[in-house]
């Protein structure tokens, strides 16, 4: 492990934590605009998190240790996963950091604990959320893995660092297949970050909520950690999409100017993508839960098709 890499670890973590709440607010802002509202400030999520950190933690008397460790494990897993996706600066990979399979399973680790946390207090809302979340994550998994296999196929590597370095070196989209993969990645992003049409991040209604249901019993700083983790997850999946499809400006060598430019560009690109997500969400209605498998099947066949096109091209 060299100095560059350690610097990368610190830089990437700080960057992801700093920008994640911004993107969440931006999506909300765009959704508000489409509904004819002014919407909260783009810094609202920062204020909310700061406020939550000030508040007290209340545990249900039924809650066990799981409830207490879930926010920490969830946040830690997400922050480690954040190291797998370089946002602005791509160093040489060390010790298998950046492995796409490990990345997916770190997200799964966070989800596993979140689902247990949902069940812990014995509230039926939490149980409902956990049950639905695990069901959805199970049936989206084949699609996710096929999309990542398509990426591995296109880039001939299993590592995000090498993928990003390759696309950064070329500056533009290297193959039309990538645009198709991008569409599948977008669907995965929508599903994994609990957005319309799969879940509704805004409501606390038992009929629609999945992610919100699981964290209903969390409070104070613990809730802040859960919200932050969700924001980080959103940012990571956005970063995968951005750095593969629109890699220009991504820094591959360590220089202050390069990193500042890359960071600025990343925020701009991320804001655009956040806008697209907001518009996408606004243009859709929440789907019935049991119609989701057909959406996922569509995404699955789409990604298999991509690979088959690539194979026989």
């Amino acid at each position, binding site marked *: 492990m060299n100095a560059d890499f350690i610097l990368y670890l610190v830089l990437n973590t700080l960057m992801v934590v700093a920008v994640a709440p911004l993107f969440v607010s931006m999506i909300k802002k765009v959704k508000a605009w489409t509904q004819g509202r002014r919407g909260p400030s783009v810094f609202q999520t920062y204020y909310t998190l700061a406020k939550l950190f000030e508040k007290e933690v*209340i545990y249900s008397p039924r809650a066990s240790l799981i409830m207490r460790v879930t926010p920490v494990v969830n946040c*830690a897993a997400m922050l480690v996963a954040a190291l797998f996706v370089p946002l602005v600066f791509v160093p040489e990979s060390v010790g298998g950091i950046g492995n796409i399979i490990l990345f997916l399973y770190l997200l799964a680790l966070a989800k596993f604990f979140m689902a247990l946390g949902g069940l812990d207090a014995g509230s039926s809302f939490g149980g409902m959320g956990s049950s639905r979340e*695990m*069901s959805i994550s*199970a049936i989206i*998994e084949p699609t996710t893995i096929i999309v990542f296999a398509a990426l591995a196929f296109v880039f001939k590597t*299993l590592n995000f660092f090498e993928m990003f370095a390759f696309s950064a070196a070329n500056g533009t989209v290297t193959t039309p297949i990538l645009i198709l993969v991008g569409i599948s990645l977008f669907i995965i992003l929508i599903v994994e970050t609990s957005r319309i049409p799969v879940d509704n991040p805004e409501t606390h209604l038992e009929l629609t909520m999945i992610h919100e249901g699981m964290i209903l019993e969390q409070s104070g700083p613990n809730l802040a950690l859960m919200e932050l983790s969700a924001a980080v997850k959103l940012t990571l999946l956005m970063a995968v999409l951005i750095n593969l499809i629109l890699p220009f400006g991504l820094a591959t060598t360590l220089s202050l100017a390069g990193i500042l430019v890359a960071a600025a560009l990343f925020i701009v690109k991320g804001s655009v993508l956040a806008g697209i997500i907001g518009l996408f969400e606004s243009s859709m209605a929440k789907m019935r839960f049991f119609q989701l498998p057909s959406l996922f099947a569509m995404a699955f066949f789409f990604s298999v098709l991509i690979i088959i096109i690539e194979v026989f091209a």
Partner: protein
Amino acid sequence: MYTELFFGSVVFLAAGFLIPLVLYDRDSRAVRKASLGCTVLAAILLGSVSLAILMGGGSIAVTVYQPLATFSFSFLVDRLAAFFLLIIAMVSACTGLYAGEYYEHLDGGVRRNLLCSATSLFLLAMVFVVSSANTLSFFFFWELMAASSFFLVMYEYHAAETRKAGLFYFIMTQLSTLFVLFGIIALSWQTGTFSLATRGVPVTVLSTVAFLALFLGFSIKGGIIPFHKWLPYAHPASPTPVSALMSGVMLKIAVYGLIRFLLDVFSPDLWWGVLILLAGTISAVLGVIYALKEHDLKALLAYSSIENIGVIFMGIGLFVIFTTVSLPLLATLALLGALFHSLNHAVFKSLLFLTAGSVVHATGTRDIERMGGLAHRMPWTAALFLTGSIAIAALPPLNGFASEILIFIPLFTSITVVDPLLKVLMLVCLSLLALTSALSAACFVKAFGSVFLALPRSEESAGATEVAPAMLAGPGILAVACLFLGVYAYQLFLRAGFTVPIPDMLMTGTLLVVMAAIVLIVLHYTSRQPVRVSETWGCGAPSQLSSAEYTGHGFSEPLDIIFSSVYRTRIRNERAFFDDRKTLFREGRAEIRLMKVFEEYLYLPVARFSLDLATRVSRFQNGCLDTYLLYVFVTVVIIILFLGWS
């Protein structure tokens, strides 16, 4: 030196077998302690010698007894055998520790001595199967293993359920033995020898038949779908340490058999690999889908074993495929994945079985719907079960992930190199493997959540208390092993001489700890107010009832509906009316029953056919001496004719 240590452990196992047998009529804890103590000592010796062979090289080759010129009882422990001996040693040591306490809580008086004795015999048989140097002694000990495990399953024979399970198990295991015997005979016709190291037997009709018979035999023993039904019957019926040994170790002996024959005897064809891969994939997916539906804790674990054996078979199938299409690097990876997953599954599945046994012991029920809230009452058991759940859900940084990634990587990489038709196969298997591991995460969230979290849903569960330390020590060691094998996976492979392209889990593990520490520090310095324990918002309901909780059934309901085509249910409506026009309803019955697809469409027809055949054959038996004399006479005439002819 190795040989002496090996025989030392055999002597200890034999002592573990004989002590309780000799002192059969003395119902004392000391006898059973001595027997299980011998088992644990044997396991430690066996573990150290196999570890030495595995890491340092060398082997044990010794002939004990040669009754015939062509046949001997001889043992050969090479690295492959040493690896499986290590699995046996690891699980049996921890199970032995656990059983010392657990057996004392069983009913049955002096029969518990026999249980200890049979456990040792079972272990001894497995050690000998793995270290057999020729196919005949392999078969002999295979049968000994089957017979001794049957006695273990039948321990609580007074329960009708156990008798049914035992009989089911006996028939299946004898079928397995039959196929293995048939395969071995066919193989010896092909090669003219009973050796287990006749490398590169060419693909002929006879060797294909031999392979298929052996594959069938090992599949039945390993619980590959559709030959899996004995597992969910036998595991819940047997005492917990026995379930742990059968699921953790005995299934791996089937894996060992398959790998040994594929590596050292046959030179496989491509379609053999495809067959193994497909059998594995189907078992993996269906196994976990059935596990999701299960609410008997031990049957759930049994189905999950079917899934994991499926994953191991996938690795073996990939190994064969990549070998035949000359991709040796990927083949090695897949084989290492299969082997490592065998070890890991042995560790976490016996951990789960032992802790599940503790839970069943504390609550007196196996139904997860009647549990709940045990995390407060049995915190250590809960922590151990959680470790096992994380490991089996293949989550980093524990060992389940380390071995599944070894199977994922060759699948990912092969897509770029193999020919188009195989690519499609690889893609299908890849997505199904991903589905399997995600479903198993869902399954274990359900298992852990329903058993340990929320409020107790029965009085037994509310009154449960933590088990004795001895019943925590065994699983505790296994839990540490889960962590160690996961975090140090990369380094262990390096030490064994393989550079595998898996991420260094030590790095990820350290980073996880560092990040958790940072989060905790931030929490510590930002928190302004003390933590409060108080009733949380429940939509205005004054207090929470355990009956309002999400149950295991409720949890898996969405997946039940999504996979409803797999769970074939049969809905029956019977209605009776007072009048002919069917207007006045008198009584009715509606029934939704989960169809036992494999039993109804596969097992029962076969059973009916054999019963039919037996009825026909029994007509020859009329109980009259003259008729039997006639049979003997006819037989003699036929033999004379046959001998004269040739």
